């Protein structure tokens, strides 16, 4: 059976959605947010950023909401929010299981 797209998110995808959870942003602001939030650990090259935004928009994970000069502004959709929440829950479960393993 084919895996559902976005059934798991990469780190860059997760942080991108995290950036939009806080409010709509343009691509550059998303990139800057991720860099600050991760302390420079997670970087999105401009090509990667554009590809992820395009992909997410095509799958209705995010939606285009307006323009700021030449820049498109994006906001997270309900579906995107659900994906984010599911991924967060999954990662928390992973951390929890790992910590339980350590205690044993």
């Amino acid at each position, binding site marked *: 059976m084919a895996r559902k797209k976005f059934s798991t998110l990469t780190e860059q995808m997760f942080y991108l959605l995290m950036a939009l959870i806080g409010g709509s942003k343009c691509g550059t602001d998303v990139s800057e947010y991720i860099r600050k939030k991760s302390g420079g650990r997670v970087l999105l090259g*401009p*090509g990667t950023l554009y*590809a992820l935004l395009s992909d997410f928009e095509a799958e209705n994970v995010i939606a285009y909401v307006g323009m700021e000069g030449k820049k498109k502004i994006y906001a997270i959709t309900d579906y995107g929010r659900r994906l984010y929440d599911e991924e967060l829950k999954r990662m928390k479960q992973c951390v929890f299981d790992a910590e339980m393993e350590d205690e044993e």
Partner: protein
Amino acid sequence: MRQFKRKLMPFTACDISAIEKWLSDMAQKGLIYESSGYFSVRFAVSKPVKRRYRLEYADVIGGHITDEKRAMYEESGWTAVDEIILGFVVLYTDDADAPEPYNAPETVKPLEKIKKRQTWIGIIFILMFLLTKGIGSPIGSLISGDRDILLLILNIGTIRYAALCLLGILLLTEGILRIVRAKRLGKYIEALKNEEAVPKLTGKSCFGAVMKLLTLPLVLAWILQLWFFDPNVTLYEMAKLDDNYPFPMLSEINAEEGEALNELSDHGAQVSARERSDFLAPETVELFVDYWGEPNISYWVKYYELRNEKLAEEAYDELVYSFTAYTQEELASRNIMYRAKLKSDGAKAANEFIRLFDKIYDIYDELTADGADDIIYLVDKNDYTASESDMDGKHYQHLIIRCGNKLINVRYLGESDLKDYTELYASYIR
């Protein structure tokens, strides 16, 4: 006033890493990328600059990227050049801290499409090689049972055959190069997916540049050879000959038989004359006459003018070997099926048939003729029909004469004794 320089483009679409490095190296030499065609790249002459180049392969439509993408690049320190190279948009930055454009495994799909396309193009070139006529023709001759070894060697020497072989080799090279480059791109893709350092590949070579120039002409030449270069016509051209044959005609060996042939040629006698020229033998003429009726007449003559005496000596030795090396044991093993079949019809019929294939020759190699370097005369001692009366006791006679670089190979079935005409044949070729 700005100055420009053009350089050959020695890469295909698979050589992304190599192209990026090449452009950076050129910039360090003061050649700044301006634009490119399929074969060459135009550089502006300027001060040397340390510049990073990258190729944008995703979302390139009509040779452009969207304004939004361009803006994202500019804010990250990259500039998109409006001129594309091999379908990619060229990006550059002078900022050593500018982030790499792509750093996620999900973005390699366009590269995988390129790899797949180049692999298929390589496979197509290899198929074209297999379907090139020149490659197939010596195999075809062997399969068809052509036992004239000399002819097989000479067939390879024709100019058109050599050209077809060259075409085939170049097609094969192009196919292999494409597949190798696609595999290299595959390694590049894997490195991107695994977020490893991409392999630094140069791949630039004069050979690559030349092959690139030849791609389109190769395809056109291959298409043309499908219609125009039939190896059978190429290697053995039919030509209208006048009466000036470089060897005696049948009427000079036996006037009656020669006269009968003129009438027979309109009544079922198989008569053909062909000529050809190639590297090894600038002139080859063959006369073929066969008539099985009354009277039985068979007269073959093959004339070769080889490029030099050494080749003619080798050709002579090959022809002689083809007769004298024919042993009974070799025939027996080859015709065992015929023997097994015919034995079912009775011992007498089987023995008669076996005898047909036991080629035994009376060999006369002490003959001389004025001007002749080598002469051999052979008589095939067997009859080729069950009834001896059909051939009236005649046997095939073979005569091979060499004078310098010229060679005549004769096969005759008739009343005359070819041994008596060695001077006549030698007079035509000395």
